[in-house]
């Protein structure tokens, strides 16, 4: 590995906007991008803003766009990057900037509250517990691996290019809803809200979210498409529609 490399890191300006600032810094084997950012912070730019916690790919705090690719900084090894060229590190572009690499992701937390909460069926056993087979919870456990890094929200073109934040909850929150809908114990019905308020119809299954998920959750195939199918069979299935006409 070359001993020194150049990193162009996005710096916001106090009055708004921002530019890349170049830093030349020492690198060594095994380092990840977050190590570089920390080294620059400690040695050259103590006010450089970056959000991070676990540095182990488990908390989902250090999301950024590295050479244009949405990644966790702590899980991007320098050995994967071409260090002969400057490496760019910039914040997620779908969210409002706070400072440098830090963005305002509070929208995700607000939207999540709009999903009807978990409502379990009555307990199966007199001691207040339930019985579930492992095979029945495998899929929900896949969704629950989500570390809320919001990289899927970052790349979703409905949010990124069309800014439909008021009408569409995005892949992360759809996955949260799917985990509840497919939970073997849950009794709530979120399908009407999926169609009416959460904008599931906006997703046109380009699978960008699935590609960037650091937890390898098959967001589109396993979460969003089954939810879409439930909406379709509830509202657009010709047989059900006919039955509904008769019932009314």
């Amino acid at each position: 590995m070359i001993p020194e490399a150049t990193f162009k890191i996005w710096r916001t300006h106090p009055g708004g906007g921002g530019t890349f600032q170049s830093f030349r810094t020492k690198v060594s084997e095994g380092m990840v991008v977050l190590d570089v950012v920390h080294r620059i912070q400690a040695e050259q730019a103590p006010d450089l803003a970056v959000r991070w916690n676990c540095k182990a790919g488990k908390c989902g705090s250090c999301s950024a766009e590295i050479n244009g690719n949405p990644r966790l900084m702590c899980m991007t090894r320098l050995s994967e990057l071409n260090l002969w060229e400057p490496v760019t590190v910039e914040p997620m572009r779908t969210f409002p900037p706070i400072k440098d690499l830090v963005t305002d992701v509070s929208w995700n937390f607000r939207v999540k509250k709009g999903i009807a909460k978990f409502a379990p069926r009555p307990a199966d056993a007199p001691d207040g517990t339930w019985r579930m087979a492992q095979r029945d919870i495998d899929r929900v456990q896949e969704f629950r691996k989500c570390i809320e890094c919001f990289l899927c929200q970052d790349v979703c073109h409905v949010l990124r290019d069309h800014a439909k934040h008021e009408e569409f909850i995005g892949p992360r929150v759809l996955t949260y809803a799917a985990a509840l809908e497919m939970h073997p114990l849950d009794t709530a019905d979120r399908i009407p809200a999926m169609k009416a308020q959460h904008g599931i119809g906006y997703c046109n299954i380009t699978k960008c979210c699935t590609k960037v998920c650091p937890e390898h959750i098959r967001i589109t195939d396993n979460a969003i498409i089954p939810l879409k199918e439930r909406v379709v069979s509830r509202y657009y299935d010709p047989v059900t529609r006919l039955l509904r006409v008769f019932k009314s």
Partner: protein
Amino acid sequence: MPHDTYTYDVLIIGAGGAGLRAAIEAANGGASVGLICKSLLGKAHTVMAEGGMAAAMGHNDDRDNWRVHFADTMRGGQYVNNWRMAEIHAKEAPDRVRELEAWGAVLDRTTDGRINQRNFGGHRYPRLAHVGDRTGLELIRTLQDHTIYLGVTVHMEHTVVDLVLDDGRAAGALAYDRERGRFHAFAAKAVILATGGIGRAYKITSNSWEGTGDGHALAYRAGAELIDMEFVQFHPTGMVWPPSVQGLLVTEGVRGEGGILKNSEGRRFMFDDIPDNYKPQTASDPEEGWRYVTGDKSARRPPELLTRDHVARCITHEVKAGRGSPHGGVFLDIAWIREKMPNAEEHIKRKLPSMYHQFKQLADLDITREPMEIGPTTHYIMGGVRVDGDTQMSAVPGLFAAGECASGINGANRLGGNSLSDLIVFGKRAGEFAAAWAREHAAPRLNQAALDRLEQAALEPFERGAEGENPYMVQQDLQETMQALVGIVRTESEMREALERLDGYKARASRVGATGHREYHAGWHTALDLRNLLTVSEAIARSALERQESRGGHFREDFPEKRAELGTVNVMVKQDTGGAMQVSRIPIPPMPDGLKQVIEEQKS
């Protein structure tokens, strides 16, 4: 200057497992609740817990019950635990785990559809409820997703500078938000500290940047007592290579699933040193150990699953004797189970998915084929705020503590899996009793002049600007000192040296500078962290000097044996009126006969 003030019945500082569980209970108790966290919601260190939470539900072995769990916890803690907390914990953990399912947690199942439980070091029977190796994520997400519907106000990315008191009683806190760097006052009838650990006082640690001992130091400055600070847990298995991930945790679950420790000569050295009090429960050969991890109830556990303090010392011993791995650790091998099971690769990936990815991505190593290199890493502090075992209230009226920043349940050494269950058992109790306290007491007054003084002091680094010392350098020096001189193996002369150096760092910390704007300023934040790190480091070093014996996580080269007369005391530190740290020994209250009997009957 005037501060905008938030007013709550109960203010909770920290939003990991303990803080969130406390918030739920306090809100259910009718209190208005404010929750402050240094990071975003759901990112606290709890998220990194891997193995599971210990609760004697007896699903996988019906011989398990609270008595066995209590005895295991006391034995692991070398009997200096707060026995009342160990008792409450063992009795209440099953209910706390079951209630998580009612809130949506999806834990791994047994074949008959109940919560599956796994083996872990120091636990006699399979006891850890888990989800693969991401149990902490499941716990924090379940609590987080339950809390957001309860009307709790969450102040994310806020850091508490200090607690404020009213006539000796907890009255609230001064905090600043990272986004703007502005100060906010919080008034509350009761305050709960749930700030986690101190790992960042050491160079090699599994802790995130948040583990700077804030709750320990805030409580200490407010007049509360800290006990057991000499007991720091060095987890035996942290990554040692590459350097940038040194210290990152490798779950004990690897050993629970059959992983073995080997030195450079290929010897399974853990069989060479089994403490007498664990001999009756430990496998006599590798074959028996393998039968144990595959569920044979007649087998005893392999020595890799002895308590963490012991395993960490054995590893250190191998490395010092020149039998270490290339990067200064030893080998942890799970790939060997290929000899034993046909579908080993798939089994490892299913049982230890995060570990598989962690090594694949960060070290280019396939754990289903090659052994890992591991070594001890600073993981957890058993010591913390001295609290009442039932209510979790400290010596400061209205100030509560729960989780890692509180002390008592773990004694000299914590068993793996007893932390997540500690968070939900005592988080719940802290929330319950804080809400009750708030109902019974009038709102305290916030002293504006005191708030102003705190704010001025916090802004001093900007006055010194570029002239001031670099806070990162002071932090690094402190971490290296603690690592080298107050680490796994300790002696008096080295600890005296550490205390001298800490004095020097204190002087340097008072000269650190920050430049630029206050918004999301990591350098300034580090400057403010130093005060807390210095306090907990000094508390650890002074307590470790005072305990002239070796017990649990505390090993003295100059006093390598346990001493009976020190088995009946806790070491306590407290700030005196002049601001100096006072160290004393306090007797452990005698254990009721009923509990003594439980311990005796479990000794065989």
